[in-house]
């Protein structure tokens, strides 16, 4: 892992067109703003980091600037492909994690399968795989994004001593 940069993942929603979009920011921002007919409001702002991966043999650096984050399945939709995979792979002690790119671009320009494999390999190579493994899949496997209650592995409610409440679907 190289080029690590800490910052914030911002989820914002337009109250006019209901579109959700996401981006990485080095600033902790909660400001509402207008952009043409759209009024953008921050839905969630979580501390996170971005990084690239570097090959230790040839020093090639693969950019992961297009990776928003990883989400774990909470089994909210029984007929969702991710939930079905989660159950299937649980018997092999493999955790399914869902990779997200930044919206809306990621819907039309998914992170290539090659890079998801690279990410999966990265996390598996730094763990004791005799105990369990990780498998990372793309978020288009989620049946209904607007109903998904999966949890992003990022920092929410860091300034509160209270445990954050269960989150509503973000999309």
């Amino acid at each position: 892992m190289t080029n690590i940069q800490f910052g914030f993942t911002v989820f914002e929603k337009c109250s006019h067109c209901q579109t959700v979009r996401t981006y990485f920011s080095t600033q902790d921002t909660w400001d509402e703003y207008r952009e043409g007919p759209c009024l953008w409001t921050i839905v969630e702002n979580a501390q996170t980091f971005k990084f690239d991966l570097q090959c230790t043999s040839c020093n090639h650096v693969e950019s992961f600037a297009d990776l928003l984050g990883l989400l774990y399945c909470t089994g909210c939709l029984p007929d969702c492909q991710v939930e079905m995979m989660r159950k299937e792979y649980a018997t092999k002690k493999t955790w399914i994690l869902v990779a997200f790119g930044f919206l809306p671009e990621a819907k039309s320009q998914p992170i290539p399968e090659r890079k998801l494999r690279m990410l999966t390999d990265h996390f598996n190579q730094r763990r004791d795989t005799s105990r369990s493994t990780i498998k990372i899949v793309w978020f288009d496997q989620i049946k209904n994004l607007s109903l998904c209650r999966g949890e992003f592995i990022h920092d929410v409610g860091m300034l509160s001593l209270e445990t954050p409440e269960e989150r509503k679907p973000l999309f």
Partner: protein
Amino acid sequence: MTTKDLIESAGLTPLTRFEPRDVDGAIVSDMLSDVMASAKSGNLWITVQTHKNVVPAANLVDVSAIVITSGKKVPQDTLDLANQHGIAILWTPLSSFELVGKLYVLGLVAK
């Protein structure tokens, strides 16, 4: 040193079911992003964070156990998720500072 050794020698209370494993150094952090970026397989993760998101983060980087310090109460959904995946959650009334001092004296080091 194993998680079992640490439970006995540091007086930690296990809150979940898990198989003992070797402990290799420790990371002290209350930020998941920091742990995902910096933790190494086998590290003991010392934190006051009790949200259930600590479980997938711990699993992602393969820490040997999560130790909740300062006597913080751990929500049941966090324990349930950890039990489901065999992730060790240990508990202590000591602060992170006090626990680190104790572990240092006990000889916990990174290989």
